[in-house]
């Protein structure tokens, strides 16, 4: 967590923490496994009232942040959600809301943003494609012009909250280059298939586009002009992923340290064995490092720093690689109980592995870091 918070930010964090603890404790998270959406719509609306959906949206378009630095505020919420493996479409809804706030026409923003801000509607960002790295070059989902309409063909997967979303923001290769479209999830020609998934409450879908016709007014930003927007979306998603991962991992590390004090073997607390103490020292290094780079990345993206693109991918590469390993180590230190369904450890591992693999994995992140370094 950022070590320099304003009192308003502390209030936001504390309010979110209390609300999550009360409404979706881990027992409730487990219960939501049976819920097809993985979250309750009324609950999400209450979260929206606490600011979960408005922080990346300009005040002129109905949003507003606590500190004037909306992404830093939102990262605090993401950390709290990670700490309790909370449900809800936090990343896709915020990515789409931010994009609409920055790039959409007044008409489109007026039509869609109020619902997203109030939590009455939910959006998904259709970006990833099967078997392809998540980069703007050569998206295979095509948008061709037919008269004054665009026709979309292709497949997007995995799409976070894709089955639950009311609105889809689609990143496609258009006649003029990378272009984004906003369409209702009820549009004809869409085949939305829920996917099975590792996380118990965060769901993904595959969405097939077959001759999906959208009007020119569905274009968000200019036709062919979505590259900068795409980069911003990726950076936002990566910051929120890293924040959730460190929130989750910090919690796991914390209760594992406690376990080492509470549990004894051969007449001694586990915490007294040097072999284990050294592993805990390494883990302390990793969690502090993960938090440090996440805060740096959040600040860099927030400030539009020239090196934000690199730092945020450095953060993803480190956090998404190191933290799942750290949690696996915590499982090891718990012994047999650590690999049971009963124990909450796997809920956290599920969440961080989900984030490890989506919106670009550590291998892709390292590759992009090297490419950016060479420029």
């Amino acid at each position, binding site marked *: 967590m950022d*070590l*320099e918070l304003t009192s308003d930010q502390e209030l936001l964090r504390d309010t979110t923490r209390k609300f999550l603890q009360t409404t979706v404790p881990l027992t409730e998270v487990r219960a939501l496994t049976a819920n097809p959406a993985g979250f309750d719509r009324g609950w999400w609306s209450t979260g929206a009232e606490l600011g979960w959906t408005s922080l990346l949206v300009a005040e002129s378009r109905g949003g507003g942040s606590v500190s004037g630095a909306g992404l830093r505020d939102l990262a605090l919420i993401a950390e709290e959600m990670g700490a309790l493996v909370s449900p809800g479409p936090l990343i896709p809804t915020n990515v789409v809301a931010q994009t609409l706030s920055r790039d959409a026409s007044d008409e489109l923003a007026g039509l869609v943003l109020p619902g997203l801000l109030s939590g009455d509607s939910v959006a998904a960002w259709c970006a990833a494609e099967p078997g392809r790295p998540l980069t703007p070059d050569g998206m295979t989902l095509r948008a061709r012009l037919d008269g004054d309409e665009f026709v979309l063909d292709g497949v997007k997967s995995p799409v976070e909250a894709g089955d639950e979303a009311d609105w889809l923001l689609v990143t496609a290769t258009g006649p003029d280059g990378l272009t984004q479209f906003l369409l209702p999830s009820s549009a004809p020609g869409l085949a939305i298939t829920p996917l099975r998934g590792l996380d118990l409450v965060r769901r993904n879908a595959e969405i097939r586009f077959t001759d999906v016709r959208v009007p020119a007014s569905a274009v968000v930003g200019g036709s062919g002009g979505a590259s900068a927007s795409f980069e911003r979306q990726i950076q936002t998603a990566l910051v929120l992923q890293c924040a959730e991962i460190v929130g989750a991992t910090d919690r796991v590390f914390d209760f594992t*340290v406690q376990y*080492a*004090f509470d549990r004894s073997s051969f007449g001694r*607390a586990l*915490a*007294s064995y*040097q072999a284990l*103490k*050294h592993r*805990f*020292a*390494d883990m*302390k*290094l990793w969690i*502090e*490092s993960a*938090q*440090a*780079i996440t*805060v*740096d990345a959040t600040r860099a993206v927030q400030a539009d720093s020239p090196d934000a693109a*690199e*730092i945020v991918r*450095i953060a993803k*590469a*480190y956090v998404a690689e190191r933290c799942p390993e750290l949690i696996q180590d915590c499982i090891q230190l718990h012994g047999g109980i650590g690999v049971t369904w009963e124990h909450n450890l796997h809920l956290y591992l599920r969440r961080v592995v989900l984030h490890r693999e989506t919106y670009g994995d550590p*291998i892709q*992140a*390292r*590759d*992009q*870091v*090297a*490419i950016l*370094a*060479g420029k």
Partner: protein
Amino acid sequence: MTEAPTASGEPREDLDAFRTRAKEWVTANLQPLNGADPALGHATDDADHVIRVKAIQRKIWDAGFAGLCYPAEYGGQGLPAAYQDAFIEVSYGYELPRLFNTPTFTIILPTILDFGTEEQKKRFIPAALKGEELWVQFLSEPTGGSDLAGALTRAERDGDEFVLNGSKIWSTYAWKSDYALCVARTDWDVPKHRGLSVLIVKVHQPGITITQIKHVDGTEEFCQEFFDDVRIPARDVLGQVNDGWNVASRLLLHEREAVSGSSPYAMAPRTAARENDQVGAAALAQVSGGADDPRVRQLIGEARVLTRVHTALVGRIATSIRTGRLPATAGSIPRLSNGVMRVRLATIAIDIAGDRAVAWHDGDPVGELGVAYLGRQGVCIGGGTLEITRNIISERVLGMPREHAEDLDRPFREVRTNTPTQRNRS
């Protein structure tokens, strides 16, 4: 961790004006490195090197850029750490008297500031800042390993003097140095931590013999010293007699700051990241021509991730200690990070270089990567092993039970040192 003392009131010059003035001076007065390794500068292994760095430090002193964060009454400039950072920024890529950086500026002088008498502070701090006196640490002993408090080197009181006998080892460039801080045992009849004293020792004086130790990379910067009835004035004890562990502990704290890159007194880059970035990745990619190779890109990416994360960590831990979120012993976290990172960077370097790191043309810098790999573990040993570092983190940061020690509560005279132990074989 140390807070740089700030001048009373606002600095008389704002940061931007300072930076501009420093940049102009550095550009006009220091020699550009032109791609030479900034850690070494124009270093050579002979005494000329010392003469050269002392002259450069004197120039820096005369221009008013020496000891930026040291109090003005001891010859410093009394400025906040941001001014030191600015100077480092503008002087990066120029020849600096880095030999003074560690231990003199970042470890020794801060410890003298903490424990010195007024007379000692006035005597030694300005002299070092002027480039007149270079310091070395006499801490480790041949039989000691990381057990610094187990010192066997003895200092016995004789009137107004102490008489020093014993041996120290792993001191860096002792033969180039003028003064040393030396940990010695002054009382054998109390437990080990209560019978130590720290002495200020003139290096070149009767009774001190220095030998150089050749390292795996062929360098001879490390030394061993033998003390044979070396006479030291009693006024040259730093801190109180028999309170040496307290002084040494603080010294180690400054050392951790120096190693982890968070010392406000460093005049060379405070984090390793910038140098590692260059050495470990970008330069290597050019050497191998491998930036288009996905395998090499993974390694370059990993190196940049490690160095940038380390930089972020250094900042976070420094802030955490300053605000009380973590205890001062958390300085061991960047120390651990630094060791682990550099080990990995050394491996990445030879992985990129491939067979050119083990068989190379004369003068090809790629060969140095292979040589550096041989000495890779040094950074995990010097200044206390990473095993001790992990103990400190688990015991003093996470609060876990301390390792059992048999020498804590008995007079040091009765403590066993290096006698063989029966090995169980079945």
